């Protein structure tokens, strides 16, 4: 470890060398070429579908079904979008999704982080079994809790509200939150906690001022994962919402399916684009935080 003190960072090393000797730059370019091609291919594979989705929102039913995959819409106009908004109450659905997912996400992360801290950092009798109980939640298929939960919500007269979704979403994120954030606590240097303890910090203070900042990037990463898991949920949303006013975006996308199996592709894609645009903003914001968190994490190392 001592040898690292004088050594410059490898990245600087590389750039210094490259600027000094142009001949090296060409060979470096050639050396990097195969992998650059891989990266380019990768980007096409992940980006083109997005373009296709957007193009699809301007196509007619016939164009979508009969024209080649690569074809551009012949008469691009916003009719699919107007039809999408006419057929499905997209604004309401988006609000419902946000109202259920965001509170559940925040509560789930807060409670999960607290529990993970207690389970990984603190010393107490029964933490093994408790972690084990949370692990059961990761291994169980979600379909199995539908009937009991439906019964509970029905008896509590909650079914005409968004509460069943908020409650369920909060609970289903907990096992993974606890498990993953506990892993991040595990990786954190224990010395920091011990130092804080010697400084006379209380347990809760240690959690808040030392523990939480240390796993911040972990929390954001888990949060991002859970956000998309919840945002894309159809199983719970379909089971616990009867009223069209309570539909989430994913349930709303089913509005374009007909009774015998038909689908209105154009309006469906328009609705998908609208719903993605909304999430995209959130995603970019959260992604910024995650990446910043990651960068901070790496500097800490």
């Amino acid at each position, binding site marked *: 470890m001592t040898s690292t003190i004088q050594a410059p960072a490898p990245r600087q090393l590389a750039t210094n060398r490259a600027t000094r000797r142009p001949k090296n730059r060409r060979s470096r370019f050639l050396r990097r070429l195969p992998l650059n091609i891989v990266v380019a291919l990768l980007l096409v594979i992940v980006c083109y579908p997005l373009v296709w989705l957007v193009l699809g929102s301007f196509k007619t039913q016939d164009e979508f079904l009969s024209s080649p995959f690569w074809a551009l819409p012949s008469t691009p106009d916003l009719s699919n979008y107007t039809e999408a908004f006419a057929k499905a109450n997209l604004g309401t659905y988006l609000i419902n999704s946000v109202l259920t997912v965001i509170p559940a996400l925040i509560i789930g992360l807060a409670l999960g982080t607290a529990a993970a801290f207690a389970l990984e950092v603190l010393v107490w009798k029964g933490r093994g079994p408790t972690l*084990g109980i949370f692990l059961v939640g990761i291994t169980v298929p979600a379909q199995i809790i539908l*009937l*009991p939960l439906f019964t509970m919500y029905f008896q509590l007269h909650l079914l005409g509200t968004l509460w069943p979704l908020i409650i369920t979403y909060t609970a289903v994120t907990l096992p993974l939150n606890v498990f993953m954030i506990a892993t991040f606590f595990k990786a954190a240097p224990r010395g920091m906690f011990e130092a804080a303890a010697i400084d006379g910090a209380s347990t809760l203070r240690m959690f808040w001022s030392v523990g939480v900042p240390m796993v911040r990037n972990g929390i954001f990463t888990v949060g991002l994962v859970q956000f998309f898991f919840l945002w894309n949920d159809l199983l719970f949303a379909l089971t616990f919402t009867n009223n069209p006013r309570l539909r989430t975006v994913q349930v709303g996308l089913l509005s374009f399916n007909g009774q015998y199996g038909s689908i209105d592709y154009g309006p469906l894609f328009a609705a998908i684009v609208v719903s993605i645009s909304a999430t995209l903003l959130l995603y970019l914001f959260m992604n910024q935080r995650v990446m910043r968190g990651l960068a901070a994490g790496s500097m800490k190392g």
Partner: protein
Amino acid sequence: MVSRFITRKGIAGLSLVISGLLAISACAGGGSQGAGGNGDGKFSGLTLTATTDVINTLNSLSTGDCQAQNTSAPLTLDAAPQDQYDQRLQLLLSQNGLPSTFLSPGTPDLGRKFIDADALVNVSQVLNDAGLKDAVLPAASSLVQQYYGSNDLYALPVQLNIEGIWYNKQIFAQHGIAVPTTWDQFLAAVDKFQAAGVQPIAQNGANPGWGITRWLGAYIFRALGPDAMRKVADGNAKLTDPQYVAAADQIAKLGAEGVFGKAVASADYNQTVNTFLTGRAAMMYMGSWITENIEDPKQNKVGAANIGFMRFPAVTGGAGAIDQMPANAGQPLMFAKSAFGDTSREWLKCIAQNYGDTAFEKSGLLTGMQMREKHDLSPLQRVVVDQVEGSPSTVLWFEALFSSQATTISTQNAGQLANGSMSGTDFMASVQAALGK
């Protein structure tokens, strides 16, 4: 590492917690009665999001002919997507919380279970008591009776479709083919199309491939008689009996010859309709709900006048006849016993009397309910009505009387039958195995 928690002590702790929870869950299980109540003061309904015809008609009734009923018990209508609709109905039933009225489950099998559980209002009885016996068309009435295997009606047939083969008149004329009335003529026509490089049939074989099994069912009814599937359901015949397998072999043979196109096992409903309505296939088996698509010039590129309807051809020497019309009553409207009171009774009577006319006026739709006024029909509607009136009896479809298990297997395997990768014998054996459960 995290694995440290899986210890013997951990398991002991776990079982302790679980036994504690049992007590809690036992309390939670026996709560108060459902929100359904006896229905007085409100009339709740649940339909499919996709059945805009039913939604529009019920809403129109509430402000029109059934205004009085709506004043004493206002209609509150919810709509759910088709996905998980059956699950939702069962969950509501298990809580005694079914809405006053709702569209039936997707499979008749589940509807029969609802009847067995005494969850449904006997519609016949209510109508008879009110002197409204004739509110339901006889053909539709017989369909619902066949659905649920009961002489009493447990649902109002608010949807009614005849089924058969829709064909492209232009393509038929181009190749000099007359509308076939026997299976042999039909096969000859198919050969001619094949030879000319025209795809004879567009059909949905992707899971659920009911389009394909419609061909099988219709052939069975023609060859073995209108009670052929009833016999299977009652256990008096098996799908693995040679005459049934022979029917499946007919479809498998068409499949092996590529009559359904080159990707039938992944062809979904939309592709099928699009292929037919853009003139790339000569025929398609479908219910009369398709008239809506045929009359839409954005979807139909060959013109509504160019689409004809033919009855499923007769099988020479078969026990069935060409005028036994395959038909379905879609998802009929049921009434929950748990939410049935005096106001619901008034609603039911009002719906029965006025649904037919209102549905036609608002959605241009023919239903299984009697119309009291005369209406002008579009040419295609005229075709449908003529076919209904010209058919002395109706038959259902292949899976109509199956258990849900057998229906799932049948529609999942249909694509393999239609692209020639599954023999008639194997197909029938797989469905029969599921029926036997």
